[in-house]
């Protein structure tokens, strides 16, 4: 990453200064250092479908970026390329200055630093809640059982499900399971957290409890990339909104500016649809 940045011959398509200047940067976001997540010129196809088209996105430490866009626009795919659950055709993705390794131990180590929360929770069904949270710290970070359990209980306390620690995932509500999934990701002390529609599989009355946890995380300075259509969250917690359509990043702006005054017609259409109900 460092060598390609200092190499002036490497063009970074689509990364105009004008674009970066358009978004005022909040004071808690550290832009002085290299970006924590740096996505440059990324393309990906599923067969004939060009799902990611020359994507450029950099996220600074402490920044909260909300990604939204119509169904099928490539939001999940983008999210999943950041920890290489999806491979890319070309382009470059680095986390904290380190390009994503192809595979093997180096990739596993990098994934440990990138927390991910899925739409469908994906808790380990045969393990208790606390075991779900301690598995990574014990097996990947080499922590002792006692230490991992202590940290896990603190995290479960923080997301409000400590009293469920010895139950199995199927015994918890969706909202509780998703909060456990957040605790499981946090247990690895990640540098950045990815959320792919964390509330869209939840019953409406459980959405808020999960969003509250996420807002709390954002306030504590966690770097977050969140695919969500929850505008309340975007307004309250996001520093930047990225709007995707048909595999492209069409528009980025501060949440208030984006929601009140979208520039592109695609964003206007999209907002028109989600605001109308």
């Amino acid at each position, binding site marked *: 990453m460092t060598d390609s940045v200092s190499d002036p011959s490497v063009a970074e398509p689509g990364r105009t200064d004008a674009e970066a200047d358009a978004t005022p940067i909040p004071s808690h976001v550290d832009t002085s250092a290299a970006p924590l997540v740096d996505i440059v010129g990324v393309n990906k196809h599923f067969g004939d479908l060009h799902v990611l088209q020359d994507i450029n996105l950099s996220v600074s430490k402490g920044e909260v970026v909300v990604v939204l866009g119509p169904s099928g626009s490539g939001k999940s795919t983008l999210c999943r390329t950041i920890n290489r*659950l999806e491979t890319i055709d070309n382009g470059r993705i680095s986390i904290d200055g380190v390009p994503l390794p192809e595979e093997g131990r180096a990739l*596993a180590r*990098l994934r*440990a630093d990138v927390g991910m929360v899925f739409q*469908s929770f994906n808790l380990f*069904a*045969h393990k208790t809640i606390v075991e779900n949270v301690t598995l990574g710290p014990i*097996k*990947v970070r080499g922590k002792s059982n006692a230490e991992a359990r202590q940290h896990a209980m603190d995290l479960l306390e923080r997301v409000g499900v400590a009293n469920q620690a010895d139950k199995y995932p199927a015994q918890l509500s969706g909202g509780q399971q998703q909060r456990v999934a957040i605790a*499981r990701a946090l247990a690895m002390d990640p540098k950045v957290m990815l959320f792919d529609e964390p509330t869209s599989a939840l019953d409406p009355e459980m959405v808020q409890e999960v969003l509250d946890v996420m807002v709390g995380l954002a306030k504590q300075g966690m770097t977050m990339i969140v695919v969500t259509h929850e505008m309340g969250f975007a307004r309250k917690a996001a520093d930047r909104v990225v709007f995707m359509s048909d595999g492209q990043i069409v528009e980025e702006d501060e949440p208030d500016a984006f929601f009140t005054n979208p520039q592109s017609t695609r964003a206007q259409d999209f907002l028109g649809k989600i605001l109308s109900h």
Partner: protein
Amino acid sequence: MGKFGQMMAQFDLLHAFWVTIQLSVLGALGALVIGTVVAIMRVSPVRSLQLFGAGYVNIIRNTPLTLLLFFCWFGLRISSGIQLGLPSDPTQVLSLRWAIIAVAVYHASFVAEAIRSGVNTVPQGQAEAARAIGLGFFDSLRHVVLPQAFRGAVAPLGNVLIALIKNTTVAATIGLYEAAYTMKGMIEFYPQLLYVTFALIALGFIILTLPTGIFFTSMSRKVAVQR
């Protein structure tokens, strides 16, 4: 009844079933180990391993067990000179060892399929979540996928074990003194006791297989993963 007593004195039926049990247990353990390795190959991301696993299952599963056993006993042992022990070991010991190998290799293909069907009961998302917290391929398998796959595979594995116990009788063809071979001798020497002999041997197998089936069915309920 005198004839019956005479027959029972001449043929050591308990020992014959003890050989059947040894062949079943050791063959099953071998099948479990080989079958698990083959199943892992089939779900691995490495194309050549996938192909090897698929080839193993499809070739071995569609080959008669008798063929495999003859291949081992008359082929590998005699022509290729592969030794499973000292030349001075009794033939019965050697034939048991070769039979264990043939039984294990053959049933491993069914075990692999049972485990793979168990792997398919584990939602893809859990494997992704395991990778996302930084577990490598083997750690994800070991701690997340396989424990659930085995639980999902308990019932089919029970069926494989029952088939395996019955299939051990093929070892009679290479002269191993197990239950079926002993039955052959009993019928030859005491043809008038045919029905009793059949009932006795069949009962022996039922005593082995019926509890196995009940055990595996109740186990599969007990360990089932709640989803």
